[in-house]
């Protein structure tokens, strides 16, 4: 059997350096911090407890998380964190797994990751684990957590289940609005929202490593999303932007001449999507929706999915400052793309500033608790 076929689970000082370096790069922080981060990770063996709860989920965020190649997910699981509770991964079932959760909660001070939405209707009976409503499990676990990281569109803002009959919400938000259901247990605690459907693995790994090293959270926007990942506009940075400006819109996927053209008329929500997919790409820097010729659904935004349906119909009117809502066809026919692009850039800069809400101080910034 050749070496390829064998696991290479041994983690060395060099591996910690690699993890540290990769995580700093993901967060856009200086590589000079690498030795410090590596040391913190090395010291953390068996120390940073993680409790990962799954509610109304599809396990997509878990799947995404274990797709991490750099650093390998197995080393994160075995060397960087102590995964005390995770239904899809843990050995225990039934009363054994419930005991593991109770013990972790009793010890407290863990990183709480929440995947899946939380149904509030019918006293929470649309999701129960071990006979308990998930909404109550979240409360118990949040109370004793050191930091809370809701991952994916569902746990952050309600996601697709928010459109269903179960009053499915995120940990702090129901869409763009706070629901205050967990204010008592969330008060004074850092909450870091990592939306998209599913979670982007690198964003979680970077936030975890940052927290383990510095004990703080990175700067966040008003939806508690790290600006390092959610401070950029898709449309403004899109590789198809030139086609938008020139008025070349894809209207028929079967026409090879239109390949690469702007997907706006196919429902692309790039103009309202704030993320860094366009430069981070997905699955170990391979591809992302628009590069794969399919529109951005803005799954990073609190309005997803309810406000963005129907997905493949043009629905977002571009709002231009001083002009207001603009019919894109008329803009293309009369004003010309260059003008729209210039105004668009102004609009997007001001929007990004608004989102950051002045929360620009580096690593020590605490998330604000203002009602959105």
């Amino acid at each position, binding site marked *: 059997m050749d070496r390829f076929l064998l696991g290479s689970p041994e983690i060395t000082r060099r591996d910690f350096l690699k993890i540290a370096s990769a995580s700093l790069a993901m967060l856009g922080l200086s590589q000079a911090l690498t030795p410090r981060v590596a040391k913190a990770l090395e010291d953390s*063996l068996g120390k940073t407890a993680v409790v990962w709860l*799954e509610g109304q989920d599809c*396990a997509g965020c878990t799947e*995404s998380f274990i797709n991490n190649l750099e650093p390998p997910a197995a080393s994160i699981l075995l060397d960087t964190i102590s995964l005390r509770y995770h239904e*899809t991964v843990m050995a225990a079932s*039934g009363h054994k797994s419930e005991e593991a959760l109770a013990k972790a909660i009793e010890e407290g001070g863990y990183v709480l990751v929440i995947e899946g939405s939380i149904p509030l209707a019918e006293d929470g009976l649309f999701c129960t684990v071990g006979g*308990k409503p998930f909404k109550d499990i979240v409360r118990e676990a949040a109370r004793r957590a050191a930091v809370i990281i809701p991952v994916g569109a569902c746990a952050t803002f309600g996601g697709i289940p928010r*459109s269903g009959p179960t009053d499915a919400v995120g940990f702090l938000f129901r869409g763009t609005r706070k629901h205050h259901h967990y204010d008592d247990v969330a008060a004074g605690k850092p909450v870091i929202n990592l939306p998209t459907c*599913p979670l982007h693995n690198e964003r979680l790994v970077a936030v975890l490593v940052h927290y383990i090293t510095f004990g703080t959270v990175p700067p966040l926007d008003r939806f508690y999303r790290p600006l390092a990942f959610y401070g950029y506009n898709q449309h403004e940075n899109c590789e198809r932007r030139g086609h938008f400006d020139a008025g070349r819109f894809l209207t028929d996927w*079967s026409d090879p001449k239109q390949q690469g053209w702007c997907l706006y008329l196919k429902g692309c929500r790039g103009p309202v999507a704030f993320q860094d997919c366009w430069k981070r790409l997905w699955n170990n820097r391979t591809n992302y929706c628009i590069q794969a010729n399919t529109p951005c659904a803005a799954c990073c935004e609190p309005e997803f999915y309810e406000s963005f349906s129907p997905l493949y119909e043009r629905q977002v009117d571009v709002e231009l400052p001083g002009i207001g809502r603009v019919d894109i066809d008329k803009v293309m026919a009369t004003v010309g793309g260059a003008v729209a692009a210039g105004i668009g850039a102004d609009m997007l800069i001001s929007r990004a500033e608004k989102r950051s809400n002045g929360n620009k101080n580096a690593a020590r910034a605490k998330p604000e608790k203002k009602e959105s």
Partner: protein
Amino acid sequence: MAQRIVIDPITRIEGHLKIEVEVENGRVKDAWSSGTMARGFEVLLQDRDPRDAPYTLGRVCAVCEGVHTIAAAQCLDHAFGIEVPEAGRLMRNLFCSGLYMHDHFIHFYVLSALDYLDILAVAQYKGNDPQLLAVRDKIVALVEKGDTAPFTPRYEPDEFSVNDPETVTTLVSHYIKSVEMKAKSSKMLNIICGIQPNPATIMAGGCTATPTREQLIEFRALWEEQVKFVNEVYIPDVVAVGTGPLLPLATAGLGGAHGNYLCYPMFPQGNPQGPADYALGGSDHLVKGGAIIGGALNPAQAVDFNSITEAVAHSWYNYPPGVDSLHPSVGITDFNPRKDGAYSFIKSPRYDGQPMEVGPLARGLVNQYPELMDLIGKGGKPGAVARHFSRAVEARIVGEAGLAWIDRLIELATAGPIVGMREKPVPGRAQGMGAWDAPRGALAHWVDIEGSRIKNYQLVVPTTWNASPRDEKGVRGPYEESLLDAPVPDPDNPINIVRIVRSFDPCLACAVHLIDPETNDIKVYKVS
């Protein structure tokens, strides 16, 4: 005296499952399964643009991710009358066969192996293979730090557990390797999917991706690595364990169900021969559909989709007076949580009136997968071990077939840009069906479109078949039947129950429509 045992949650599956059994004299006497989470996807789709369905339903479950996307896309192809172009069909096939490879080996190593291995035997490894020594040292270091999560706590190993240090250490190293191989698979599939999991490119009309020749050559190299892992690691491990330490479990037929099996055709290798084929994605399927009734070795009959019905006798739904069962195309979801005699929000799908096991064992028996038939020749009975066997063989079959599909796609990409889509407008009024066999079994969607919106959408998914409750004749569903007579010598350590249930690879997220609001009040027994 009979003792009730409730295991909730059953972990290392997709979704939330509760299993309750009655144990008498160390054996399971009766069993009930319930899903404990619901989101209401069928309801939230009503009155929407039908084209949303593949994207939205693809997010029902991300483990056998994307099979709902494909079933929904075929359902719309059928309703809209679209013949998907060859490149679209090939990309859909490749996406699904890549998924099959990693889904099957992850199920074996990450989701199931801990039921069969005494992982702490690693500490006794005495060999000198440097890689295995590294595994040993890692586990020993965790033990010394007093932190062996997520491997502990656990059910205690029993007489069937594998505890040979060399075998266990090798399998643990492959557990770790399998996680890396899955990450590589996601990188590979992302070339045609946009994001992984939860593909974004597959929709009504085909697949929007336009991979270049160079990307497809990279795709092929990544593919070969997956096939190599399946052939040289996964299959040998399953065969070694299944015909070695686990052979007694196999010959005892632990986890066998009714002897009824159903699978739908998957991986079309030819273009549709007519509009009826749109629902099946094409013609000449690599893995054939079929129904076997009354015994694993009985001949398979062709699938008749008109023979599928859903009963609600023991489910919390109402049907109109005098109606026992309905075809899913006219299915009704009328919720009645106070219904007498009901105990599940999973309906009871039946084929020709029979409960059917779906999944890899069904496909393996209908298609006579070679290693599976060898195991049966050696006295192995269809049950938990046979399900693992069938998965492993299937990973090889679809992985090797994929190479030809990639080569054809490379030919197409060499001739000009890949075009995988053919579009048609949303019809005002239409019905459609889409069927595929997901890693976990037979999956079909039905749509009824009116006024260009979804009027009704029904899914009959693998875990609904397998986890179904008793029907109007009192006949148990496959999980329930498979648990009967399972040895549970120690009610505190019901390890055989989880072995059996996990061998089906449960996927609850899609199976459950709604939930028992009584869950809190009734049947709350715990192992103590």
